[in-house]
């Protein structure tokens, strides 16, 4: 929208003269989507992981559709931008938002949310998933999830996270709930602060995003005990998935990941949805996207449309329960 604002304002003023008799402008938009630039709202500040992924997706998407303008609207987790999208209004038929775990976790963490995280939105598709990895310091006495759980039931162990309500934090809380252990959460501000504490052994474990810890697993400074996805990751083929490694310890259903997907306002035009999903299919099958994924230890997203909605719904339920048990629910 901000693109060519000047000319838009100018044409708007000109149009306003003509539009008095021609109120057909509003009807025209249905048959030719997109009739304007697409705005992709990133609910976090520029330069973060969500921003980086969004810009890459936007870059590839605009080769298929039309200009995609990325806009950062950080604030209160991701809830400020999400709330604005939910309110809709002018331009919302060309507005997308890159949703991430914050979308579902934020619903539990932030009080009096003025929107319904599922009902108020149209779900385009899940684009990228980044698995989390359960890591312990390289010189830690624990070599398997089983050993760790046994120890954590005996004594208070601690886990680090880049901040309260992050997928890394919630993965830890979920682990704590399912295994009935006494893990203590030590919050940091960003992975940059959290990592040194883990590397030096000040905290005992973390459930960090793959790209953050991958180089340290390679160099042996960290030991990976499990990945949080149901199947092993191609980056760490020797590391078992949590569901397998934690069998018998209540972890049979454990599954978390940092997912990223596009959502829109609930009144998003049907035609736009179809075109957008087709364009995304093309983008995600493309070589560029496939080459981009491994740089973030990421996997292509799988769920589309209503399946994506169901996925978000189940995530919402999962984190709401976890937040309740961790006394985070507002």
């Amino acid at each position, binding site marked *: 929208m*901000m*693109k060519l604002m000047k000319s838009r304002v100018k044409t708007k003023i000109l149009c306003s003269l003509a539009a008095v008799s021609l109120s057909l402008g509003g009807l025209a938009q249905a048959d030719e989507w997109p009739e304007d630039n697409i705005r992709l709202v990133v609910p976090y500040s520029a330069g973060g992981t969500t921003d980086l992924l969004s810009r890459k997706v936007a870059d590839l998407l605009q080769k298929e559709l039309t200009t995609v303008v990325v806009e950062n609207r950080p604030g209160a987790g991701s809830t400020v931008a999400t709330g604005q999208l939910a309110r809709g209004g002018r331009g919302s038929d060309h507005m997308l938002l890159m949703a991430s775990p914050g979308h579902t976790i934020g619903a539990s963490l932030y009080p009096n949310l003025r929107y319904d995280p599922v009902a108020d939105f149209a779900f385009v598709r899940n684009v990228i998933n980044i698995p989390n990895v359960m890591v312990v310091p390289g010189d830690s006495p624990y070599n398997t999830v089983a050993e760790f759980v046994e120890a954590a039931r005996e004594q208070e162990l601690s886990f680090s996270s880049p901040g309260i309500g992050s997928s890394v934090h919630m993965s830890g809380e979920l682990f704590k709930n399912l295994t009935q252990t006494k893990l203590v959460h030590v919050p940091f501000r960003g992975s940059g602060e959290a990592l040194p504490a883990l590397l030096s052994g000040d905290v005992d474990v973390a459930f960090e995003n793959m790209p953050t810890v991958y180089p340290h697993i390679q160099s042996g400074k960290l030991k990976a005990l499990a990945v949080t996805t149901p199947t092993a990751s191609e980056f760490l083929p020797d590391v078992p998935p949590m569901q397998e490694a934690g069998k018998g310890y209540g972890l049979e259903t454990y599954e978390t990941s940092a997912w990223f997907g596009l959502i829109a306002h609930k009144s998003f035009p049907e035609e736009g949805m179809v075109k957008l999903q087709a364009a995304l299919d093309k983008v995600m099958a493309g070589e560029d996207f496939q080459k981009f994924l491994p740089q973030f230890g990421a996997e292509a997203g799988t769920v589309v449309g209503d399946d994506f909605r169901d996925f978000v719904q189940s995530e919402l339920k999962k984190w709401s329960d976890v937040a309740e048990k961790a*006394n985070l629910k507002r």
Partner: protein
Amino acid sequence: MEKSELQFGAASESHCGRCNPNSILGGIFSVLAAGFLFYVVPTHIEIPAHMQHPLLSPRFLPQLAGWLVLALSILLMIDGLVKPPKRTETDEFRRGVPIVRQLLMVAAGVVYVLFFEQLGAIGSGVLACVLLFLASGLRNLWVYALAIVFPAVVTLLFIYVLNVPLPPGTLWESLSLI
């Protein structure tokens, strides 16, 4: 909080002769700090249901800072009473400032705070600049042309060169909808 301090700004000027500014400052800050400690903290900082250690309380740091301010303001107040600071002369330029000048400045602030999204970055920028130029009593028309050119150029630079989306103004958009 800001409001009461503002009022004080005026109060100290007029009382400069009888009471000294440090005592008043200390007095006001101690009242504010006490209000903060005994009203704001208990009502606006929740204590979590489960807390491992009193040092971990969300109230710990605000209370520590609150007590620090309270103690120091009382010290400042007493210090001012015991040893009044030397009176400093007010700058001659601060006297006899036309009220219109100050009101126009406030108006410019109001334009930015309340109407930034409605008027857009350019609109509010132009309006505020004109108000502030008027406040200084500028007569040269070329200067007022500057008030239009600058906000427009800067806004466009922000939007296109720096990719920072400043608001185009909802008022203009709704006008064009008619």
